[in-house]
């Protein structure tokens, strides 16, 4: 068999001929892994393959540095990356089944890793991959993904996943993302495929989530509603409202219930939305608008807007004149056909919905959950961060941007003395973009990303040798960004410099023990180094510092918005951002202050507020941060002395 020949040739090849033989071998694996038998054959050879040094020199060489949540992206990244990833997973199955006994990996570790792979990639582990937009995946590549997960899921019994899934659900729900497809897919599978036992503690929690989503099917509810009296409707509204508040998840039946009461018992709406006193007052004041939104704009594909609406009411956003006017205008906007098409890509069902409905619902979600926006599979952390910031501090500006982008498929920003248009180059907006996002991001992010890139380009011409963010951040995000700017990296010398002063300034600006006891006024954009679980630097990322406060444990923690966070992460050196349990608000991540700072490479601050505070930061405080920096990303840089 040619696969076996190729494997032998690879094994015997001289070091310098390895790459060519490896390519041939990969092409053989590619051929074989298109059906179950082929996967099995490859699987049977995994010990031999690993032994041949196949993974040597690739990013898959060190299993402990691999990240389960990235498996999906690599499997869909095209040939030959998908083949490496597939083989890597088969390797872990082999370790789990003790067919392969490496010295540094235990079967238990492999099992945990595979479970994490299933849990973090649940949508593709159990469901067909949704094809969105022009960015369609190759069907043979999809087939491989399907076969691989069928193979893994077959080896790891679903029952064994329950604890992992519960943990995943609980942390993700505490984190309150706008897009809940993945959570729904997990609950869906648990509901229809798992055997659950009411006596078991884990199962009880899982049953609760099933109850939230599947208490009634929409059909059931529709047939029951006419038979129910007000009392029963009221108690169902109370229950739906409690579940909504507790999980942020909107069950299809809840949406129908809300539409029903909007027509028959509008006074029950606050209960169904579980509104607090602020929200109730807002509802009383804008009752007609709320009913109009529920009846006209909320559909199955944006049902999460029900939760968004409840939070918007509690934020009293309708009582802000500018926001209200902008919203009214959005509700009658004529949507550009291209934007309409993109919005449809974001739909989960085939049920007809107008682009305007989708967009208005999406806007409510973003306004209600400023920290629930995520970048998805796109490298657009800056844009997600901008949406979050505007949603919190400039809702009318945000809605106006949405109106511009939705009606003209264009957006104009000013940078210095130039106007930058997002749709001026004749390149199609949304090319190579993954539309698996909330509807507002679908409309805004392709434009914002292009504007951001153009600003960065102009900045590197305007002030070469200086970090372009110094001028781009204020122009892009707006006047909320402070004028002071520090970066650890000197571009001219290509070295890390003045790190001690950098750390001290960060403390003096943001840490209440050193800045005079002040809280942050606006979120502060931070540039951070991404490090993996071995603290190895993987790239750059944009987050926003939202709060600094002492947690109940007595420890000073930094709370931040992370656009790529789907739950807890592991940045190495025991630095593990948490998303709940440490005083986080829904959507925030948090870390001990000094740990977060050890990953920061750039931030904005206000020089006028510093006074002589910088000099008062204790030497030992700075040293602790520096140690972490030097031993992680710092290893990949030169430091000036």
């Amino acid at each position, binding site marked *: 068999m*040619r696969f076996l020949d*190729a494997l032998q040739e690879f094994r015997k090849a*001289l070091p310098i001929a390895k790459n060519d033989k490896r*390519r041939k071998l990969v092409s*053989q694996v590619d*051929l074989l892994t298109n059906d179950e038998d082929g996967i099995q054959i490859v699987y049977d050879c995994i010990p031999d393959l690993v032994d041949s040094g196949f993974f040597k020199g690739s990013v898959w060489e060190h299993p402990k540095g691999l990240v389960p949540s990235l498996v999906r992206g690599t499997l869909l990244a095209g*040939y*030959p990356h998908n083949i490496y990833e597939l083989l890597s997973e088969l390797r872990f199955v082999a370790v789990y089944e003790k067919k392969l006994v490496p010295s540094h990996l235990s079967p238990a570790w492999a099992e945990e890793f595979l479970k994490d792979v299933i849990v973090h990639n649940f949508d593709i582990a159990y469901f067909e991959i949704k094809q969105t937009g022009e960015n369609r995946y190759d069907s*043979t590549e999809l087939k491989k993904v399907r076969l691989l997960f069928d193979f893994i899921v077959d080896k790891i019994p679903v029952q064994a996943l329950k604890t992992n899934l519960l943990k995943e659900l609980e942390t993700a729900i505490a984190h309150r993302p706008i897009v809940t497809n993945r959570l729904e897919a997990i609950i869906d599978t648990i509901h229809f495929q798992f055997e659950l036992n009411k006596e078991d503690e884990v199962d009880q929690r899982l049953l609760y989530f099933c109850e939230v989503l599947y208490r009634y099917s929409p059909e059931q509810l529709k047939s029951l509603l006419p038979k129910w009296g007000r009392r029963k409707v009221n108690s169902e509204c109370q229950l739906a409202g409690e579940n909504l508040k507790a999980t942020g998840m909107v069950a299809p039946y809840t949406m129908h219930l809300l539409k029903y009461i909007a027509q028959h018992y509008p006074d029950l709406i606050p209960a169904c939305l579980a509104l607090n006193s602020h929200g109730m007052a807002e509802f009383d004041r804008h009752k007609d608008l709320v009913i109009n939104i529920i009846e006209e704009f909320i559909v199955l594909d944006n049902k999460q807007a029900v939760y968004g609406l409840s939070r918007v009411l509690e934020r009293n956003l309708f009582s802000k004149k500018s926001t209200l006017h902008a919203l009214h205008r959005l509700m009658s906007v004529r949507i550009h056909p291209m934007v309409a098409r993109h919005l449809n890509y974001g739909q989960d069902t085939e049920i007809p919905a107008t682009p305007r409905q989708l967009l208005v619902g999406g806007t409510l979600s973003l306004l209600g959950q400023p920290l629930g926006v995520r970048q998805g599979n796109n490298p657009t952390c800056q844009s997600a961060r901008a949406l979050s910031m505007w949603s919190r501090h400039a809702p009318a500006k945000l809605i106006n941007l949405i109106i511009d982008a939705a009606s003209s498929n264009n957006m104009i920003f000013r940078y210095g003395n130039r106007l930058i248009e997002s749709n001026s180059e004749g390149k199609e907006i949304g090319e190579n973009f993954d539309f698996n996002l909330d509807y507002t991001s679908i409309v805004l992010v392709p434009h914002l990303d292009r504007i951001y890139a153009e600003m960065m380009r102009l900045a590197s011409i305007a002030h070469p040798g200086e970090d372009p963010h110094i001028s781009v951040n204020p122009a892009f995000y707006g006047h909320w960004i402070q004028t002071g700017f520090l970066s650890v990296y000197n571009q001219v010398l290509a070295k890390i410099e003045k790190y001690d002063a950098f750390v001290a300034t960060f403390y003096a600006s943001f840490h209440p023990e050193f800045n005079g006891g002040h809280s942050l006024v606006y979120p502060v954009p931070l540039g951070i180094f991404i490090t993996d679980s071995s603290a190895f630097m993987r790239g750059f990322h944009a987050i926003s510092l939202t709060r600094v406060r002492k947690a109940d444990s007595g420890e000073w923690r930094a709370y931040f918005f992370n656009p790529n966070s789907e739950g807890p992460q592991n940045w190495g050196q025991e630095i593990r951002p948490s998303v709940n349990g440490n005083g986080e608000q829904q959507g925030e991540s948090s870390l001990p202050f000094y740990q977060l700072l050890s990953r920061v490479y750039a931030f904005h601050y206000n020089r006028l507020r510093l006074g002589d505070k910088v000099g008062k930061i204790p030497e030992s405080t700075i040293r602790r941060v520096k140690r972490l920096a030097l031993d992680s990303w710092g290893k990949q840089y030169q430091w000036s002395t």
Partner: protein
Amino acid sequence: MAKCFALLGWSLPVIESMQKAKQPFVVVSFPEFETYAKENNIPFVGFKLDEFGSHSNSRGLAELLKPFNVDVAVPLFEETVEWAGALNSIYRDDPRVLNRAFLFRNKAMMKRKALIGGLKVGLFEEVYNKEQVHKFLDRLNEAELQLDGEQDSWFHLKPLNAAGTVGHRFIKSRDDIDNKVRTTDFPCIVESHLTGREFSCEAFIHKGKVKFLNITEYVKLGYSNFIPAGPELEAKRDLIHQEVQKMVDIFGFEYGMVHPEFFINEETNTLNFGEVACRIPGGHILELASEAYDFDALLAFVMCHDPSLTDEELAQFLPSKEFEPEKHFGNVMVFPQRGQISRLVIPEELQEEPYYLDNNLIEPLQPMKIGNREGFGNHFGTVNFAGEDAGRMRELLLHYEDAQFYV
């Protein structure tokens, strides 16, 4: 048996073959490869093998090779042919070996020698400027008895010493002379268009005799070929064998491998001589020949250069006389289309094709722009096929030559 082969030029597949066969060798190539070679325990002499000329110090190189006991030099690339000729002149104590090497490197000289010896060649001339090309066309048209208003005769323009299709221009009209020919092309050779189907052979020569003849069918020159050739060409094997032997005799070639290109007219049973090289051919031809005839063609290529081998010793490295290939082995070289590419895609229908074997395509590390190609250069890897039916093979190779592997 040779004490040590000097391999002139850096070729990993050849190094691999030599190591596997445990044959003594030393690689001569640019000093840049030295660290690489050391790390991998490859005997190595760093030497700038630039264009050979009167300034070239082949005796100096021979001195450097002495510690390795080199007694046979093997040219792997076009540019090293004279160097090998010079060294072998020293080793065999025969100055004409170098002269013969020049034959392979100067296409005008090559054609003259072929003409003198009686091979069928086109009307050809060495030219030094565009004016001379126009004059050549005048004379060619005249000889072809062209009437006013009729098409110009076709001819080819080739650099005197470049490998394969590098710098080759096919001129079909007077306008082409002005549009396609560049001043930097001169001096070069122009030759009237030879009709017939083009193919190549790889003839392994020892003691001046053809010991094994491989015939390669070109599907599209520079893109795809397969081995053994289809039944039409293989039917002419005896004719081709005679013609190759005739060429070897005329050129006085004794040891090594020749890679001539001919044009065959199947009706008249005549062969037109295109050109000939004596280094490793492009298009991974020897790899295909290895698969088809179940031998190590690269090793055989090297071994044929060794005059000290007996016929029996040599026979071990070549396919036996009776060997009948069961399948045709073919490949397509993949060149991304011009423009921006960012991703490698293996077409679905390829995966389902029973003739498909494997590929070694390289993935782009980042989006990149693809410009024009030159010769056999800058391909992104090959896609290999094997199967029993030559017709099907041709179809497949033609089809995948245009398939988009990069988007």
